[in-house]
């Protein structure tokens, strides 16, 4: 309750700041996630973009997640239990706790500052902090971007350092050991204007993760025993992505994205994402979306471990490290109040409604519903 008050206060400060100053934009959204296991996550988020002095911009974002998970259907650690869903895990090692409903709150805050130079350079930095009962996430990041060729080419670089604390919830009065995890991230993105209607983007991202990367609650059947999950404590992740956006003659645009991912745990993945945006009438925008994802299994993943030591000393029951494919279909409506505004302050207001359906070859399915508005003034 106290945390909700703090998060509400933050949102209030953000909104109050938005009302008092000029050159601002406020974005607020309410996001609901439900899946085939009856897990439910509700997210409220507010973001403020504030122009400060000349060439300086401040961004503040606050989000609150409310996670509701039903009792698990099987024994703790059994493969049919999906114990982690957006932003949430739960203590499933205990039989007692796994048969109760579970609820938790998560808060997230991000503050960023950006400085734009007159010659087309932008330098930025941000701080990220998230808190939930068993996890604290922190991240410091910096970015540099520069325009070339009269703004036709843009090169952007970003670096980030994350340091997270994992503190498993006590089980039957006994607290588990605490763990740390660090993340270094480097991103390079090249954006190129190809024609008056076409924009392309090429990017590379590498992430070095070291520290505890298992789920502290999940257990694995190995050699006839139920043992804690054990993942390697180092992981090098790389991704290459490309995107093309094209404005079509029918007052519509298409965006095609492809991503190839690779890491030293043996997971290789390809993702294809297509968006079609279409004006309906004067202002209404409808977006259709399809996304396909295909990945291979980590080298130490097994459906069944005969040896308690697993493979090379590692064992996992993480469904994310198995081979599978997934599909996502979505539709989004953006309703601008231009021409519909009955009050002057409503001019520029845009209302968004989004529905997405996600399902994969592991018999998992989820519905994502999002409503929100953007209000520049």
């Amino acid at each position, binding site marked *: 309750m106290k945390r909700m008050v703090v998060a509400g206060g933050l949102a209030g400060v953000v909104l109050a700041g938005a009302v008092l100053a000029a050159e601002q934009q406020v*974005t607020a*959204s309410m*996001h609901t996630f439900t899946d085939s296991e009856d897990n439910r996550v509700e997210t409220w*988020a507010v973001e403020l973009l504030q122009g400060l002095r000349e060439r300086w911009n401040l961004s503040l974002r606050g989000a609150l997640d409310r996670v509701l998970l039903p009792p698990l259907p099987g024994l703790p650690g059994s493969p049919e239990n999906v114990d982690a*869903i*957006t*932003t949430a*895990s739960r203590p499933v090692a205990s039989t007692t706790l796994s048969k109760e409903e579970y609820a938790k709150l998560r808060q*997230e805050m991000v503050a960023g500052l950006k400085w734009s130079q007159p010659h087309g350079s932008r330098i930025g930095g941000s701080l*990220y902090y998230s808190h*939930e009962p068993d*996890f604290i*996430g922190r991240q410091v990041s910096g970015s540099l971007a520069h325009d070339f*060729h009269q*703004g036709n*080419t843009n090169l952007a670089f*970003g670096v980030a350092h994350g340091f*997270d604390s*994992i503190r498993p919830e006590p089980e039957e009065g006994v607290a588990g050991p605490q*763990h740390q995890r660090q993340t270094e*991230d480097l991103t390079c993105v090249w954006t*190129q*204007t*190809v024609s*008056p209607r076409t*924009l*392309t983007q090429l990017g590379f991202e590498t992430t070095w*993760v070291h520290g*505890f*990367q*298992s789920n*502290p609650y999940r257990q694995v059947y190995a050699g006839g025993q139920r043992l804690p999950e054990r993942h390697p404590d180092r992981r090098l992740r*790389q991704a*290459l992505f*490309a995107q093309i956006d094209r*404005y079509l003659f029918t007052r519509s645009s298409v965006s095609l994205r492809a991503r190839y*991912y*690779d890491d030293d745990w*043996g*997971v290789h*993945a390809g*993702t294809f994402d297509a968006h079609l945006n279409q*004006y309906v009438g004067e202002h209404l*925008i409808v977006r259709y979306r399809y996304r396909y994802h295909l*990945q291979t*299994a*980590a*080298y130490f993943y097994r*459906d069944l471990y*005969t040896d308690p030591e697993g*493979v090379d000393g590692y064992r996992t029951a993480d*469904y*994310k490290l198995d*081979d599978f494919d*997934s599909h996502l279909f979505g539709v989004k409506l953006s309703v601008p109040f231009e021409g519909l505004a009955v009050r002057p302050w409503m001019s520029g207001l845009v209302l968004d409604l989004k529905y997405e359906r996600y399902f*994969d070859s592991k018999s*998992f399915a989820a519905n*994502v519903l*999002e409503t929100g508005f*953007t209000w520049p003034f």
Partner: protein
Amino acid sequence: MKDWACLIGRRRGVCDARGGVTRAQRAQEARAARVPSAPERRMRAGERPSRASQTALRHCWAALALVFLGVAGCAHVQPYQREYLADRIMDPAAARRELASERKMLSTREGAAGGALGAGGGCACN
């Protein structure tokens, strides 16, 4: 289904009352007997799968960079020609806002998602 090992008492804990093997045990045995996937076969053969794919990744990167260099050299779109690029349906900022919440959702379902700004949080199991 009758199982001779159950009938003579050689399999303990997995037999039902009629001398057959339980459904759970049959499923477990079927999983163990399945043909290993390609990455598993590579791993068992002692090959490090990531090396080959890292080389492929570098080649892809180099090829795409060359294409981009060619494109960058010949594109001269003047500021007054950017009417369509500035349209709301071409706005990349709107997509970026959605990306944060989407990454959070996908990083708990897919082993290849996440890992970038704002991806912290969750369950320490990403």
